């Protein structure tokens, strides 16, 4: 296990302030504006390291990465054929490195940042409460929707809904969708109604500002911040000077 100041790196990346993680993600995205190969390599390697340290490769997100990987291979082949330069392999690698950096840093960010941390970070950056709260409710609803859809499908299967195979199954598809969508919408409306009542009975006011997180300038936060700003500055310089 790789450690830093006596702590596993996995824990260090998770304990980063969510705002620092967000700035790091933005710095990774700035790779799009540069063509400097050294800069691209550094950003991609650091993003890959964060991907590994966050443990994203062990999660369900790895499935998403497989799809991204197929997309990157296609992109590589396209860039190879499109390039008129002699070093077309290098050109193609540069293009996919940029996309790789952006995609794996996004995956790593979402794996190591809990939804409430993201909301707190957005609040700290003075993002309007209306947006932050709606995002929170959205996050709150995602698992509920999946769970309800799962149960509804089970209930309909138990009534013999999936009868038939092949062409007959395709013919029955509209019925399957109807049997899933109607109870799901009703379930969601019920949930929304309950949540609205719960909000109102606790005096909810959308415009009210919520508690903001205190920022702790630890060594790890400071290191990632310096790195992120340096990368953004380098990308900006490279973009405007060339």
């Amino acid at each position, binding site marked *: 296990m790789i450690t830093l100041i006596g702590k596993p790196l996995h824990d260090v990346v998770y304990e980063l302030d969510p705002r620092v993680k967000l700035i790091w993600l933005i710095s990774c995205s700035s790779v799009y504006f540069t063509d400097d190969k050294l800069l691209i390599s550094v950003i991609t390697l650091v993003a890959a390291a964060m991907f590994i340290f966050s443990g994203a490769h062990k999660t369900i997100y790895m499935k998403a990465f497989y799809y991204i990987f197929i997309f990157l291979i296609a992109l590589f082949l396209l860039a190879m054929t499109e390039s008129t330069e002699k070093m077309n392999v290098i050109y193609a690698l540069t293009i996919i490195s940029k996309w790789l950096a952006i995609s794996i840093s996004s995956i790593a960010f979402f794996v190591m940042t809990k939804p409430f941390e993201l909301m707190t970070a957005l609040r700290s950056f003075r993002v309007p409460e209306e947006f932050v709260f709606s995002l929170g409710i959205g996050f709150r609803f995602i698992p509920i929707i999946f769970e309800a859809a799962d149960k509804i499908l*089970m209930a309909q299967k*138990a009534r*013999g809904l999936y009868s038939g195979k092949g062409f007959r199954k395709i013919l029955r598809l509209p019925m399957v969708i109807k049997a899933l969508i109607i109870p799901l919408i009703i379930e969601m409306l019920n949930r929304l109604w309950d949540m609205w009542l719960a909000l109102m009975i*606790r005096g909810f006011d959308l415009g009210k500002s919520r508690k903001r997180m205190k920022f702790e300038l630890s060594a790890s936060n400071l290191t990632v911040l310096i790195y992120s700003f340096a990368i953004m500055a380098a990308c900006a310089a490279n973009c405007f000077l060339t």
Partner: protein
Amino acid sequence: MLAVNNLSFWYTTARTSTIDRADLKIQDNEIVAIVGPNGSGKTTLGYCLCGIIPHLIKGKMEGDVAVDGRNTKDHPLKDIIRDIGVIFQDPDAQFVTLRVREEIAFGLENIDLPQKEIDARLDSVVDRFGLSDLLDRAPQDLSMGQKQKVALASVMAMRPKILLLDEPASTLDPRGQRKFLDAIREMKDGLTIIMLTHNFDYVRSIADRVIVIHDKTVKFDGAPDLLTRKDVLRLFGVNDGQRNKSNAAPREDALIRIEGLSYKYSRSHKLSLDDVSFAVNKGEVLGIVGPNGSGKSTLLFLMHGLLKPFRGRVLIDGRDVSKIDFPELAVRQGILFQNPNHQIFNPTIKEELSFGLKNLGLGEEEIETRIRQVSDFLNFEDLSRDPHSLSYGQRKLLSLATVLAMNPEVILLDEPELGMDIGFMDKFEKRLLELNRSGKSFVVASHDLDLIEDVSHRVLFLEDGRVAKVGPTQQVMGEVRDYFDR
């Protein structure tokens, strides 16, 4: 004091009133249980008491509700909720944030308390309810008992004078229910507690006063000692107060065999079911009991082939259930889910009843006959009615009727008592025993130990996904009750 004077309420879309000229007074520091069957107007009354009606739900309201002398019609909701805390039946439905810490602070931020006061109140309820280890966890990831505690802490942090609980702890196992009641008892000093429930047995030990409402109005108001279960059944409109008892003898030959069944949910590291083996005999009612999260529902889903086992298999008449198509399986085995809303989607009751039968490929005449057979049980006059307009209890009945219409040999029931009053349960038990006498087998997973004791020939006790005990009801239930009383 909370006073209700000559209160009537009509929902905008309803032709008749949901509450009709109700009068009641609740004194400070009283624990009052408002008991009534499904659809009696309990929840509507609760909405009136806490100001949801008339501020959030519109309709025609006659009469008055006064909280500490303030008429709820004349004061904004924000003023009323400073004095009343509300906890709904499903704690999950009222969590609006993504972390326990924020959930507790949410109401306090809304009433404009200074940050120092918010922190002090948060620390105080965290200590009181022992939540310090849960503060940074997502509320929806907690166990059912922990969720109830968080919901209670979030409301108590607001320091209400009145606490209104709608069907409290109905989703908890008997031990969780007892712990919840203990928590309520501890909070009693300086607090008026109103509990809306259909379960009289549950609240009789804690309530100072019981108010029974039926047919939209107050039928009884007095001490709980003055009421027996039989009286409650009579007040609920059920004439026969006798307990139903199973008297059919099951056969010895196994209909379903479960062999070494294990299951693991993808997000979990732990096995939800671990090496479970047992058999269900022909004509038998097998009760499954166990604490929340012990794997009862998972076991039923596996038995019906709705989940794929991690290890082991389920055999019906010697055939692996995973190899039987759902339409064929539906003839042999039916399953009633906890939440009827998950299955209802047709525009009329009749179409809902015929949906499964059409999936079986039955002819129109046969479908009509089967619908007629189950409609006496349903007691619905108009089968062309939209099932979504039915009450929760009626929808649950409809779900059960759709299963019965398929005429399966075995019926799996997942917490049939959830959200149902004793009137329904009495009728349900009678029907179940009647069907059992005619040769049908049942597997009933439930937290209602009385139900299990009344109807089961044998009981299987699940604990942490393992079979802790299985045997004849008389032998096992003593131990089960001891377990939940601990």
